[in-house]
């Protein structure tokens, strides 16, 4: 993941996406990930902080203290994190285009819409 142009894992991508709105603490990230994935991705604290650790080491995310909430650590995207998110989104956009073209051109294999 630290290699240039390497893709993020699905959980790492969802966490980065969750942090694109504002800095968040652990539980907020978990809830946002669940909302963004329409409930398909539910992560526990172990997986959450394991992935955050990887993202922090890769310098995509950094810790941030909020004066009004000293009990929790907040996390935010770094410049590198923003670049990675943009790259991931454009990759997904390309994949979506390819998928849509394929469905339109070759619909006999996937079933044509009624």
């Amino acid at each position: 993941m630290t290699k240039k142009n390497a893709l993020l894992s699905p959980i790492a991508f969802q966490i980065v996406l969750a942090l694109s709105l504002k800095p968040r603490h652990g539980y907020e990230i978990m809830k946002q990930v669940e909302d963004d994935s329409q409930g398909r991705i539910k992560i526990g604290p172990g997986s959450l902080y394991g992935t955050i650790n990887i993202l922090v080491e890769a310098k995509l995310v950094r810790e941030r203290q909020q004066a009004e909430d000293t009990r929790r650590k907040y996390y935010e995207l770094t410049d590198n994190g923003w670049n990675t998110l943009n790259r991931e989104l454009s990759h997904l956009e390309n994949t979506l285009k390819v998928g849509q073209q394929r469905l339109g051109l070759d619909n006999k294999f996937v079933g044509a819409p009624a």
Partner: protein
Amino acid sequence: MNSLVKLYKEMLKLYPASYRQKYERQMVQTVEDMLDEAHTLAQKLRLYARLCIDTPTSISKQQVIHLGGIMAHKTPMYVKRNGVLSATLLLPFFILVVANTLNQVVFSENPWKPVAYTGIALLPIVAFVISGVTLVRWLQDQNKHGSTVWASLKNISSGWPIISPLLVALLIVGFVFGHDSVHCVVGNPVKVMRNASQTMECVARG
């Protein structure tokens, strides 16, 4: 404090110390936040189920990452190389045991007997010698850095690549050249090869 949080705190002790130091407080806080929003019994049960799956998985993953990191950065190259070499030399023993179980390879006459003797008796001795010498050299290196022999042996996280093949080789050599008392129980392979009929009688007697 809620009993689930207490239990969770105990489970966090199974994480590597460096990881725990960084994230323990935040993980406990997150569980407390989750509990605050779990009002009904069903919500609480879902939370318990999620933690039951997530925590052991995450602990195993972090321990593997931790051991991998130690092996990559702290274990000397000669320990890793000789550990792999010793483990490779032990493999034929297990392959022959399985082959013998399946097809009585070791009982049969030539050409299997020399192969069986090499795999069962000779290679484990070579593996034992290589891993033993490597362990002694590693302990001497540790001693130069001010660590006692006992402290080094207890530091299993960096010595396991050589300690584990040494122990396995020791067990195999012990079984192969060992005593008659285990013969009937485990089927001492050398004795089995030497005198199959007596072994079968011994097994039949129980």
